[in-house]
């Protein structure tokens, strides 16, 4: 975990520099607070890096979830599918996209008892339709022919 702290700290400091430069174009009062916060973030990031090199104060056992790389691959794959389904919903409509998402999640999550999963998805879609479409009148995205 210490290497995560060092890389994150370095990234935050590296990010603060271009943002400081960009804020130079703003009126004086408009850039004051963002710059103040950038200095605070860079300072705290530097402290985090330094602490990771001092054994007596280096943090132990931080972070949630599984530490292994394969365990992180699955959530990132799920995120990619959610992102794709969201983008597709603009063309194929919300419900088709979400059903597609639910289907794609089956192999990614390794679901074997698909009957209960399918039933839960149907109930969820009905709930969404009743609450958001009928009750709250949310104009969910609809299917639209290509080119429109």
């Amino acid at each position: 975990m210490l290497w995560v702290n060092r890389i994150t700290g370095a990234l935050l400091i590296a990010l603060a520099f271009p943002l400081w430069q960009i804020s130079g174009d703003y009126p004086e009062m408009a850039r004051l607070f963002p710059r103040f916060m950038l200095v605070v973030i860079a300072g705290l990031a530097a402290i985090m890096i330094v602490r990771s090199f001092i054994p007596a104060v280096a943090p132990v056992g931080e972070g949630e979830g599984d530490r292994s790389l394969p365990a992180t691959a699955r959530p990132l794959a799920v995120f990619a599918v959610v992102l794709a389904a969201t983008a597709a919903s603009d063309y194929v409509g919300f419900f088709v996209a979400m059903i597609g998402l639910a289907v794609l999640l089956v192999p990614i999550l390794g679901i074997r008892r698909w009957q209960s999963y399918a039933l839960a998805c149907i109930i969820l879609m009905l709930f969404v339709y009743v609450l958001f479409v009928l009750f709250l009148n949310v104009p969910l995205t609809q299917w639209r022919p290509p080119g429109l």
Partner: protein
Amino acid sequence: MEVLSIIADVFTPAHLLAMLVGVVGGLCIGALPGLTSNLGVALLLPVTFGMEPISALIMLTSLYASAIYGGSFSAILLHTPGTSASAATAIDGFALTRKGEFNKAIRISTFSSVAGGVFSALALLMIAPPLSLLSLKFGPPEYFMLAVFGLTIIGTLASGNMVKGLISGAAGLAISTVGLDLESGFPRFAFGTTDLQGGIGFVPAVIGLFSLSQALLMCEEPLKTIQQVKVTTGAWRLFPTWEEIRQIRATVARSALIGTGIGILPGAGGDIGSWTAYNEAKRFSRNDPDFGKGSIRGVAASETANNATTGGAMVPLLTLGIPGSPTAAVLLGALIIHGLQPGRTLFTEHAHFTYTVIVGFLLANLVMGFVGMGIGRYMGVVARLPNSILIVVVVVLSVIGSFSLGNNMYDVYTMLAFGVVGYLMRKGGFAPAPMVLGLILGPLAEQGFRQSVILADGPVLLHILGSPISLTLFALTLLSVASAAYLERSRIKAARAARL
């Protein structure tokens, strides 16, 4: 007459329905291991957009209270706390279940949760109005220091790692500056896009940071199921016996005080409250051989205190705008979204709104008890839902919830971006709650900072620390940093000792 009108308003069908939805939703969310009250309030927030403010806040505060109580079901039934606030309940609650006394554990948990919640609601009613007078003495420097103090306390005590918590909070403040500068009209960090000129939406960010990030964490163990425990319930008794009440009354009274007091402290939530009360109950129960092995006093201590923190957490929220817990931070956002600013005006101009919400919160604690005992024996089914189903539910509700805010895809992409950032933050040990608070307090902090700079006749720091209130807040900020540093150091030492 005003009191009667407030009580009558609470009992209107719309408000009662909102309360019931919040209570049932909170019970289910609390009972599901992994889903927290933060996630529940964040997901429900978009649904309350079209509602009138009183109904919206009654629904959200009801969900907050019942989610904390709901955590006791899985703690008692499955030895898996639904929320971190119910971790102490699992010790004695599950031991009672193994003895075949599931019903007894649930009715003690319900009675104690209701007692703690009602006590804290009454405390809120008594303490908040006079405390709100303090906010009248606040000028720009005080508001700036208040934001710094609120962020420091959530960033240090509530997040576990001081530096990372502070970075998370500072990042939230920095992100809040994205968009048009309200004074000059100049777009900041918008990179030429019109969407970013409107700023980063608080609600999509909260849904991403709390809800989607949790769904992504659950993807690491999608097939995780909780072992079913054979439950012998026998006849289902709804209320505790007089003998049971006699046994726990002192514990309940003590824990209610502890929980409310800890809840009022910004940053200290239900988990700290329940463990403190549990340890105190242990100290007072030296002659109880069952303590830790199935004692109703253990269940009562933990459950009274964790629900008592909910009302306590709303005291600094309503009076000064400092949330007492991460969930209260989302409630602060809900208040602002509905056009209400915490402080004295909530108890003067908007007194009807505020008192109706508080009385509604009090009633919700009672409703929670009846609903909880009514559906308690079936909650095991809810608590055992596999992660794979919860993931798809949370993801779909996060997407549609963000879309419904303004019927645009920009909010959905904002939620997705904060979702993946929140996931990576949690993996790296950065708590998302300080970032959420930074996003909420950002405009207030910036305004206070800028006005202090303009008004300062000399060094800005001296101007900011020029009043007794600012100085007190500054001292409290230093104290919170020092105590967090001490606690962290002790934790690191203990962790290293355990490794050896």
